[in-house]
């Protein structure tokens, strides 16, 4: 489980962010809520980033796991930032 959590962490954060935003927009649209959610998810990504950077690279599998985890966090950061934009343009 731990390895899966490391591999998928960044993308799980994206998932929480996306569906959280969708719920906010559908149930009670509020910019503040989206900002708080985005900050929480960025913090989670930051924590995952720090965690992944500390992972060992001793053998091929560990090195692979580390780079997939880092890549996942990187994609998640981009996608979360993009996702944070719409509330500011919806008038």
């Amino acid at each position: 489980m731990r390895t899966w959590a490391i591999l998928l962490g960044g993308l799980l954060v994206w998932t929480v962010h996306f569906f959280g935003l969708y719920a906010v927009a559908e149930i009670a649209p509020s910019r503040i809520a989206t900002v708080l959610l985005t900050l929480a998810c960025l913090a989670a990504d930051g924590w995952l980033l720090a965690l992944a950077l500390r992972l060992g690279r001793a053998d091929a599998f560990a090195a692979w796991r580390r780079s997939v985890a880092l890549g996942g966090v990187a994609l998640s950061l981009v996608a979360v930032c993009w996702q944070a934009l719409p509330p500011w343009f919806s008038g």
Partner: protein
Amino acid sequence: MPAETDLKAVLGGWPPAVLDPAGPYSEPVTLLSWALLVGGTVVLLIVLTALGIALWGAPALRARLGGDRAIWVGGVAFPVVVLSALLVWGLWLTGDLAAKAPRPGEMRVRVTGEMWWWRVAYLDEAGRPVMQDANELHVPVGSTVLLELDSADVIHSFWVPRLAGKMDMIPGRRNLLRIQADQPGTYGGQCAEYCGGPHALMGFAVVAHTPESFARWRAARLAPRPAPAASRGQALFMQSGCAACHTIAGTEARGLAGPDLTHVGSRRTLGAGILPNNRGTLAGWIADSQTIKPGNRMPNYKQFDAEELGALADYLATLK
């Protein structure tokens, strides 16, 4: 031939409607479209060049392409920059173009999608219908018009590309769409959501007038209508069941199932944007609409002979 020009009301022709905007609710999208089309072509050429280099390039060039760095630059960094810019543009435009509540004093029209035609009701300030029409919408040039889009049966989609993007008409919901035409003229549209049967033959026309001419048109429409002189065509219309489905204001024809025919004689097209409107097509439509537009809700009236059809067509043509 006037019939030919009338049919220009239908969608199509050159230049492509999406790239030939006629108002402020389509023009920014055209700019975006051009940016996307040109930008997309450039990116495609870049990728093709990269592929070409990978396959046939000089070893030094190929070496630069062959590594994780090239993937990060080409597959991540470059798209992130381009897509960020596009996303902001798209979001900004979305917020700008999306219609919310009516503005004070704005002209409002309710367009209801029906299988397979459009019911048009011009509304007053309070949103009450003041006049009825079908398959054609008259607007003044230079001011915005708020369309309330409803559906009477299945999902349709209202689309007049030179004036705005499309918006679905969904049972149980009322969507809003704002349009504005900057030049007088006729702008074609067509139902864009598959609605069964003759969905392909569900056209629409927006006719834009100068403000003065629009005011005259509106006044004429709202003026009380003198009872039409009794005619053979009128008699046939009232006796043959036509009145059960169609309304002609000022007569006992008050059917609501089909298009309002009070002004049918002045429409650009027949059968929802598919035929030019003249005596011949009127007669042909009455006799055999099922061949012209298979599956439409109006039965064929084969019982009329040529003379009766002519009388009916003459009568309908007088309803301006």
